[in-house]
């Protein structure tokens, strides 16, 4: 049980026909900021005073760097880039705080078991009286010719490690249940909720 002021994470999956008609939608709590997100935030707050060594998505230990890049939590992946941003897989292992990658990633493409990744989209901050919302959205198109059923989603971020070099780290991972028929679109949305408690 955690207490105090909260940043929550919600996860929405929605399947659309090619014509944009909603087929099914599910909104569930996200469960899973994992260790890299904490380590990168600690780096930012401390102005690189705390440079943890964490696994990147390739399971290589990387020591975070001060990195004067504009951003150290960037998820702005372009279309067809499945290396970061919101990414999907077919693994079903339970989530652990130490997760550093999807269990079984779904590749970019139109081949069997592959999805076409559109660019990650962002919106301005959502505003409510006692809350603010960050929305991250990625659409996946199934051009593989057969149904694909993603069972895990993750948020991969780019952040600087020693060099400095931009590495890719898993900031969040969740178990989902989606079935996308051939030709259909799957929209995956992470929402971060900041609320007074």
């Amino acid at each position, binding site marked *: 049980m955690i207490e105090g002021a909260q940043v*929550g994470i919600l996860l929405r999956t929605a399947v659309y026909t*090619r014509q944009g008609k909603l087929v099914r939608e599910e*909104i569930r*709590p996200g469960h899973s900021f994992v260790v890299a997100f904490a380590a990168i935030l600690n780096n*930012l707050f401390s102005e690189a005073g705390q440079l943890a060594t964490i696994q990147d998505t390739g399971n290589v230990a990387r020591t975070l760097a001060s*990195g004067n890049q504009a951003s150290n939590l*960037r998820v702005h992946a372009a279309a067809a880039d499945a290396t970061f941003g919101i990414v999907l897989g077919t693994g079903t292992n339970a989530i652990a705080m130490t997760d550093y990658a999807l269990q079984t990633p779904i590749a970019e493409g139109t081949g069997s078991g592959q999805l076409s990744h559109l660019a990650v989209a962002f*919106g301005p901050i959502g505003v409510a009286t006692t809350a603010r919302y960050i929305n991250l959205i990625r659409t996946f198109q199934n051009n593989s010719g057969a149904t694909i059923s993603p069972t895990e989603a993750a948020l991969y971020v780019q952040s600087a490690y020693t060099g400095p070099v931009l590495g890719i780290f898993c900031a969040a991972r969740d178990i989902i249940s989606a079935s996308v028929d051939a030709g259909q679109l799957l929209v995956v949305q992470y929402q971060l909720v900041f609320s007074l408690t």
Partner: protein
Amino acid sequence: MADPPLLARALSPEVVRSALSIGLTIGYGHMEGDKYIEEWSGPAHSWVKAIAAGLNTEISNLGQTALGVDTGNSSRTRGNGRAFQCAAAAADLTKGIVVGTGTTAIAMSDYVLTTPIAEGVGAGQLNYQAMVFAALSTSGTSRLITITRSLQNNSGGNITLGEVALYGETFDTTAYQTFCLAHDLLTLTINTGQAKTITYTATLALV
């Protein structure tokens, strides 16, 4: 295809509560040598809007640039530099944990302390020590970010705090500017000659 609907709408409190995964607590205590002795801790209530805006610029890699207002109530646009810098040196009140005497209820739109306590040894002033950051720590399956600051009262009189905030610097288009990331009410008297240490702890937990 139409734009996918955003989730920025009212969801059931049960759904939102079950999604909560980064908590923030606040506490105070004192140092005995290099050991922190906690006297009280409890839930903080108030990440405020600048933390959300800053994170949106960070995640979008400046695709979204609105930072909102800084502690001087000037609207700022994100530029090419770092965010959330809280590592204040001693006597630096432009970032890090800062305190005041205000008691106004906290709002998500807060951008500054209501009544800041200045640095110094004059009446009603405190000496702010440098911010201290711990390595990421583990508690069960959670990870803890712990940041602290000690406040020394050399004013000659007792000082009662009413509010605490976490200020962080983020680069706008020309320079680093100060933003209020969290703001909480906290009643604490620091007697003359005493020092107290304020602690913010962010807990990332699987839920």
